[in-house]
């Protein structure tokens, strides 16, 4: 299977989604950025224990980490 951020499939994907031909170098830069950040995400998540791999409820997490709420 080809990754969508691989250069060979990136051009076809982007030209279809954007509806226009893309300049030489443009696709390589965009695909390179996508590949770099996606690899970073995989490496970061790999270090997480399975029970910590739930991305939902972020606002609740944030609120639980704040100072005690002052009630009127």
């Amino acid at each position, binding site marked *: 299977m080809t990754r969508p951020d691989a250069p060979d499939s990136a051009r076809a994907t982007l030209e279809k989604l954007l*509806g226009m031909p893309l300049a030489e170098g443009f696709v390589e830069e965009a695909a390179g950025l996508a590949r770099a950040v996606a690899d970073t995400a995989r490496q970061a998540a790999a270090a997480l224990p399975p029970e910590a791999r739930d991305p939902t*409820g972020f606002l609740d997490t944030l609120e639980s980490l704040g100072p005690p709420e002052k009630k009127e």
Partner: protein
Amino acid sequence: MADETIADLSLAEVADAIRAKRITSVEATEAALARLKRFGGPDRLNCLAGLDEEDALRQAKAADADLAKGRARGFLHGVPLAHKDMYFRAGRPSGCGSRFLNDVPARTTAAALERLDAAGAIEIARLAMVEFALGLTGHNVVVGTPRNPWNPAHITGGSSSGAAAAVAARLVYGALGSDTGGSIRFPAAACGIVGLKPTLGRVSRYGALALSFSLDTVGPLARTVTDCALIYDAIAGFDPRDPGSSRRAPEPTVPRLEGGVRGLRVGVPTSYFYDPLTPEMTKLVQASLEVFRAEGAQVIEVDIPDIAAANPLTLLITATEGAAAHGRQLPDHARDYGPQTLARLAAGLLVPASAYIEALAWRKALVRAFCKAVFERCDVLHVPVMVASPPTIAESDVGANPGFARQMTAMGHCTRPFNFLALPSISVPCGFAANGLPAAFQLAARPFAESTLLRASRAYERATDWHRQAPAL
């Protein structure tokens, strides 16, 4: 009072002067309009996106009439402000720094504007910005790049580029910006003013241009910490129209502003933040710690978790969510986008969904680990904003050419981690580099501790005079 004298007042001072009827809102507005017209255009700072003089004066006259009848609307009564051109007001277009939105009237009014209206402020202009708020340098190849008031050859920083330039140049008293990766703090630092990025969820994004649901924040840029606090207190609070809005009641920050830093623990990180800094920027930022010590704060070293991935993962989330936010208009308008904006959104179209979910999962784990490691040891974390003095517009104009991703990543080294962590952070001026461009430090705190951030920043500001220095235009 002469126009120049009125322009030199801070937001807090002009609000006091209007309330006490030493000047009128019309006088303050006329002074601001005169400076916006003189210095804001394409031949000078290029920071203006739109100006409706007649409407501004109509609002100012109404504010004066209300005050004459003893009806002050709020603590910003009659104060002229202008905002980044991405806050929609019903019936009026907001261009969002783009080539194709300037003629599209908005259907609703942004929550932040509604709150400023309720506090009595009047909106007199729309300020230039980076195309769709995607970029830290301030370049905008489709509608024009604002110039830094301290040296017009240099960048303002972005994406709240026009807002930072206009406030620093004393054209307006304060402005709303937005911050997804540093877009309030970086331009505030580059232009020598104060910029506050609130905690995610603290200020409603309803009616503001959406870039990244997980990262977008709305906050003020102003000349002083007090001015920022006044705007922040007006706009903070729950809004059911923003699904990411926190129900926590906001604590007013102005009453605690002058509390000082005696006994406050100011943390200095032992890793990451200073790694790419120039020696000059390191020296300028670290010198500000001496002021905190002199004011009675306890400055301590703090070991922080490894956050190196936070910067690229902020780029990942921004690109992915940005691509989704632009999804419907991208195929019709792809040719209208500037190359760098399009490249960043294109990258978002290529990121696998699994990587996006992994980034969000790590974020939740990291914010817990970071708050435990850092904010159990200190009250605020003191770090740089910029890795180097702001470059010239020409030397940093990379577009979507090879290497643009590297430059973009490097510029957000110190700001993006706090977007990823969703923590409140503030940029405060702390001197000037040898080239005459401003320097700044950044403070971050635990979620919803804006009051502590502003109080600490105000203590520093009170002991220094960087905020009183104005660029020679």
